[in-house]
């Protein structure tokens, strides 16, 4: 922190840290490479696992030949489904054959499905043996297309179960009449293609029996330490207190690490059964093949609207491809569609909605959680609809947004799907973003440039972001826990059940606690990620750690503050209400010289215990849990992308990017902006670059980062970010914000391309939109005009 800022804050009224641009406590170790990730864990004598994975998308396993692999130097053990008969999930799903076993038994259902695990002295030796395993397959016809799968064509993925694994229907009352009566209609099919999170640190697990206690210790790169412990304990048939989960530094998670994967069970089972320390770390090809995929959705949309742009009704048939199995513990296909159907009307007062949802199995990688889950898809559809209405009516897209935007006086607002939005800055964020962009002027420029063959596009995306939900990919734990312990020397140790992967919780949670206790940030240590020391919690996901975890931090902080005040008032012989905490001291208001330092109070609490007031428990420890009253709180904002499309090559260049974000009360703007920058980068990937492609045999053809294109520093635009703060009704007024930037940005990027290509009558309806598609569209348009 700069001296000037520090000085300012010292003299400002409390709070000192909350809302300030505090640099992250984590940065020093992260930036100097000192962090310890899963692969840095060294256990003497540790073995490594490599998997033999299915090369077929659909086949019966006729025989597995292991002799040559067994004879490979360095190989210790080889496991197939016979040796490792484990699975996550319910007995019912197992009976229906829809649960993915740890290792494939009899049938393989997607390319990359693990079949054999080789435990060897090194990963090199394990991979040598993998090459020598021969599997005889009897090929089955792969199920690859959603529309066919819905009809159980060409066959069922799971013999006993129809391919349609989820179906639901919803309609507002009076929908049909409203829809038919509208003067204008349009139809569109929106599609998003498969992507995955691609964290820098790939996923993996290490497991060992603790020789002292005999307990199983699991090192995992995961978002929910306690969630993983619970799922693992059930699957392995051991008690939760016999299992310790340690999550070291996590190098990115993005939802894909909220899942428990079959490989994890194999590693833990091997450690338990053979009493061997073992680990498996995914390589990049395994990452692209077998980390949960996401965003495989089709929306067939019909829209009814009025001549002024007011949208009256949306009908949407939502479909998602779940892949071969329901990912555990969160099925991405169901999550993406069900939740999308609830926010399809976005920030607009669209009164009528009818949705039909169909999720189907296929012979592809299971679909799971990726940052934003349903949000990026819903925003792409909703903002795509708004721009199509504008184009159909020759209106400015901004005008259509203004006409439909929920007015401030209608909050709290219940949308057509029954979702209750709390107060936000819906209109204000749109207007502010337009102002930052100098919108009217830019529109005028756009016209002039077009006449010179330069195609600039402005893409607007006004978004809603449901956060801090009682249920999310981080499980169904609607609360978070925090413990605070003041050590005998007065330093503060707090612990959380969160599972951060770069969000800076060690800083933000410490900021909140420091302000409650009036201590310096550097005197607080925040622990997380070890189920032996962290209180039970849901972990990190669904943009819940700030609002729910932050609420727990505040509650625990207040409970500790209260204890310190009680103790100090007794020692100072002053009324408790008069005791204030600041600068590491408890003092009587107005008489700062009458004080006890926290250190002195801690000494009394732990050592000089005869001086404690009656009924005051020895020591200084609290545990607090916070469960928000609302099951969800909505963040909001507006993104605007400005791009130029090269009409000769189809290449897209981002010229400007503006974000107005409202996530309630800010804990740390610096961290919020970091989250936004990352989300916009990923949104650019979603919109223009990233796609997991399958061929007609169900082979993934994008198994390296040379084929699966990620945005890199050269693509990601500099962005201008402004904050609005509409506090939530929850503890601290915080709202979540981990996903909004990725929810909003694909739609902004897509709409910008649509806008640039207006002269060619093109609108982006499938993501990612690529240069070859753009060029083909321009050609079509030129041909039709010629």
């Amino acid at each position, binding site marked *: 922190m700069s001296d000037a800022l520090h000085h300012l804050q010292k003299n400002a009224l409390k709070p000192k840290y909350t809302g300030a641009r505090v640099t992250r406590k984590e940065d020093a170790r992260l930036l100097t490479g000192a962090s310890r990730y899963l692969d840095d864990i060294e256990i003497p004598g540790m073995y490594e696992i490599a998997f033999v994975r299915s090369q077929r998308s659909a086949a019966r396993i006729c025989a597995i030949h292991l002799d040559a692999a067994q004879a490979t130097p360095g190989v210790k053990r080889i496991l197939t489904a016979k040796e490792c008969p484990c699975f996550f999930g319910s007995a019912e799903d197992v009976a229906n054959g829809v649960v993915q076993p740890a290792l494939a038994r009899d049938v393989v259902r997607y390319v990359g499905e693990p079949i054999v695990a080789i435990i060897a002295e090194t990963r090199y030796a394990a*991979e040598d043996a993998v090459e020598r395993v021969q599997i005889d397959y009897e090929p089955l016809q792969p199920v690859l297309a959603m529309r066919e799968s819905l009809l159980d064509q060409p066959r069922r993925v799971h013999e006993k179960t129809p391919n349609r694994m989820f179906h639901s229907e919803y309609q507002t009352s009076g929908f049909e009449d409203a829809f038919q009566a509208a003067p204008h209609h349009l139809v569109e099919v929106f599609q998003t293609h498969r992507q995955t999170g691609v964290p820098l640190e790939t996923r993996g697990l290490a497991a060992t029996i603790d020789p002292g206690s005999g307990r199983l210790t699991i090192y995992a790169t995961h978002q929910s330490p306690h969630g993983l412990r619970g799922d693992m304990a059930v699957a392995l048939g051991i008690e939760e207190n016999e299992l310790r989960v340690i999550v070291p530094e996590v190098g990115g998670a993005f939802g894909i690490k909220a899942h428990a994967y079959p490989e994890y069970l194999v590693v833990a089972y091997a450690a338990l059964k053979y009493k061997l320390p073992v680990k498996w770390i995914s390589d990049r*090809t395994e990452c692209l093949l077998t980390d949960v995929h996401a965003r495989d959705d089709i929306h067939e949309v019909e829209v009814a609207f009025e001549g002024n742009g007011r949208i009256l009704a949306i009908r949407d048939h939502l479909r998602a491809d779940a892949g071969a199995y329901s990912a555990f513990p969160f099925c991405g296909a169901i999550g993406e569609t069900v939740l999308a159907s609830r926010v399809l009307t976005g920030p607009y007062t669209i009164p009528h909605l009818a949705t039909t949802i169909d999720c189907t199995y296929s012979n592809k990688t299971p679909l799971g959680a990726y940052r934003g889950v349903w949000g990026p898809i819903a925003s792409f559809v909703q903002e795509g609809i708004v721009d199509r209405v504008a184009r159909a009516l020759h209106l400015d897209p901004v005008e259509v947004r203004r006409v439909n935007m929920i007015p401030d006086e209608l909050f709290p607002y219940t949308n057509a799907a029954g979702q209750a939005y709390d107060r936000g800055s819906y209109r204000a964020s749109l207007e502010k973003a337009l102002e930052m962009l100098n919108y009217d002027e830019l529109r005028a420029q756009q016209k002039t440039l077009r006449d010179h063959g330069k195609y600039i596009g402005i893409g607007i995306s006004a978004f809603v972001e449901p956060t801090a939900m009682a249920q999310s990919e981080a499980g169904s734990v609607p609360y978070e826990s925090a413990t605070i312990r003041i050590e005998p020397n007065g330093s503060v140790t707090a612990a959380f059940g969160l599972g951060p992967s770069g969000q800076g919780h060690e800083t933000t949670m410490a900021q909140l606690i420091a302000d409650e206790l009036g201590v310096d940030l550097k005197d607080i240590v925040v622990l997380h990620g070890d189920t032996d020391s962290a209180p039970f919690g849901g972990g990190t996901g669904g943009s819940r750690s700030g609002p729910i975890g932050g609420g727990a931090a505040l509650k625990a902080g207040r409970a500790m503050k209260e204890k310190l005040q009680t103790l100090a008032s007794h020692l100072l012989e002053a009324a408790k209400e008069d005791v204030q905490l600041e600068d590491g001291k408890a003092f009587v208001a107005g008489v700062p010289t009458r004080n006890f330092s926290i250190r002195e109070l801690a000494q009394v609490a732990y050592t000089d215990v005869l001086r404690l007031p009656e009924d005051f428990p020895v020591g200084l420890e609290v545990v607090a849990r916070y469960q928000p009253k609302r099951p969800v709180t909505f963040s909001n904002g507006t993104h605007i992308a400005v791009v130029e499309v090269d009409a000769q090559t189809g290449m897209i260049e981002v010229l400007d990017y503006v974000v107005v974000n409202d996530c309630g009360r800010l804990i740390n703007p610096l961290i919020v902006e970091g989250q936004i920058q990352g989300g916009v980068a990923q949104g650019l990937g979603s919109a223009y670059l990233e796609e997991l492609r399958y061929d007609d045999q169900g082979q993934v053809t994008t198994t390296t980062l040379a084929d699966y*294109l990620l945005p890199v520093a*050269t693509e990601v635009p500099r962005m201008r970010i402004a904050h609005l703060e509409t506090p939530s009704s929850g503890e601290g007024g915080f709202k979540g914000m981990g996903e909004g930037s990725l929810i909003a940005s694909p739609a902004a990027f897509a709409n910008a391309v649509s806008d640039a290509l207006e002269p060619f009558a093109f609108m982006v309806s499938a993501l990612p939109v690529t240069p070859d598609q753009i060029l083909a569209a321009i050609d079509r348009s030129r041909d039709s005009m010629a």
Partner: protein
Amino acid sequence: MKPAPFSYIRVATVEEAANALSEYTDAKLLAGGQSLIPLMNYRLSKPTVLIDLCGIEAFASVSLKDDVFTIRAGITHQSLHEHPLVRAYAPVLAECAGEVGHWAIRNRGTLGGSLAHADPASELPAAMVALDARFVLTSVRGERTVTARDFYLGLFTTDLAEDEILTRIHFFASSANRIHFAEIARRPGDFALSGAFVRVEESATEITWFGVSDMPYHLTLDALPVEEKARQALFTSLASTLEPLDQTVYRRKLAAVVAERAYLKGRRVQA
């Protein structure tokens, strides 16, 4: 993603390398490793012996004498990009070397490695074809010289014999005159979707395309039409004879665009 077992030899001279290469079967030369190591990690290439050329002394020198450039094969892309002689007398080569991958890759990847690897989307093989360079190939049998235009035979396929090492590259500095270059890639540092070297003389034009078909594609024409539409139509019709490995329509279109852009660059510079 770990390579199969192999043994490793580091040599200090070209002679040692040539000897080792003829001695071992299934041996491979290792230069910058920027193409070979990924192939080995995917086990698409499983040499039993790696002969590391990085310890060969003065294997990265550049000299210019009587209009003849001599560049030894071990020079890295980044050194080529920055070399004062190359910048001054073969600027198009310096420029295109700077388009190879990212800095970290250019810092290791070598000219010899790129030329021998023969990726159809690589800048440097096409540059050599455009420059009409000569490659000196060394083996225990002696040395021979082959022109770049004869060296490339197809997709990742060259005239290099199993026991040969590409040791030196020669070309005339004067031939670098009037060659200009343009390429299009999805992201900066990616292999080109299409690229072209265009050389415009009073009476003749040469185009070398890369990234479009299986190897650098060179052709010589009469003078180009000065009129933009006619010229672009010519590029389009020439590009329509290219046989792209994928995205046929798109890559042919880009081929015409990069040819025009390289041409325009030349006109700007020469004006």
